[in-house]
């Protein structure tokens, strides 16, 4: 390729492109300054976050530890509720009778309760 410039190219080259307007310098440098400040505050926040986040290796270690704890917890047999002394059938019936009596008294004192039969009934005048 012929690198020698033609007369036409030289004439074009003599034109001087417009410079940046004078007011633009302040505007851009001010915008850059604001951007630097916001970057600095963002960096401050990041440094706090970094304190909480110790790093990938540590985080992976913690995650593994938690998994281990979880696995151990799942493997532990469920604790059974210790059973109390067993009630005999007779004692249980007695307790049921008492319960019926107490409930009947709470509902209405006018019930006639037959402790022998373990039952209760409404008074005759209510029937």
């Amino acid at each position, binding site marked *: 390729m012929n690198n020698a410039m033609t007369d036409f190219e030289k004439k*074009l080259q*003599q034109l001087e*492109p*417009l410079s*940046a307007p004078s007011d633009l310098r302040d505007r851009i*440098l001010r915008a850059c300054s604001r951007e630097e400040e916001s970057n600095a505050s963002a960096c401050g926040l990041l440094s706090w976050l970094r304190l909480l986040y110790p790093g990938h290796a540590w985080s992976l270690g913690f995650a593994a530890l938690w998994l281990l704890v979880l696995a151990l917890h799942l493997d532990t047999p469920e604790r059974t509720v210790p059973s109390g002394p067993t009630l005999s059938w007779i004692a249980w019936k007695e307790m049921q009778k008492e319960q019926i009596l107490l409930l009947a008294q709470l509902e209405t004192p006018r019930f006639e309760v037959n402790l022998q039969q373990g039952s209760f009934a409404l008074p005759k005048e209510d029937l």
Partner: protein
Amino acid sequence: MMSGSPILERLYDEHADAVFGFLLHLSGSEADARDLLQDVFLKLVRKPGLLGSVHHIRAFLLRMAHHAFVDSIRRRQTRERSALALGEASCWFAHQHPPGMEQDWGPEVSRAMTQIPAEQRAVLHLKLWQERTFAEIGQILGISTHTAASRYRYALNKMEALLRPHYEQRHD
């Protein structure tokens, strides 16, 4: 690199005019060139390591400016068409009387530049007014040296055809 505003100020003072001229010729709009120049400098602030290992800062800034322009065109494609298709370009050059010319022909050259595509304007600007080699232009614009050279030839031929009446008349 970008730890303080004095560095930015120095960068601006040394390179802003060249980058602005490039952006003005690319975008065809002073308002867009202003915004894009600001985008370039804000990017330098946001990514302080960008210039860390750069040897040719001017070339790097021109490359950043080109990227900013391409991004802006992608964002709002109609803007360039509306600004340039009408041929309402204001003068993109400082008013002057070149030797051998009776009048300032900057406005005619500006209008003629609106008639060529942006990628050819970019090569034309970098070759004529930044005095870059085609290899450097290729690096700045991310194209091959051959493509840069051929775009320049296309642009120059078109400009010559458009400006011949003015040029011959004034040169005589």
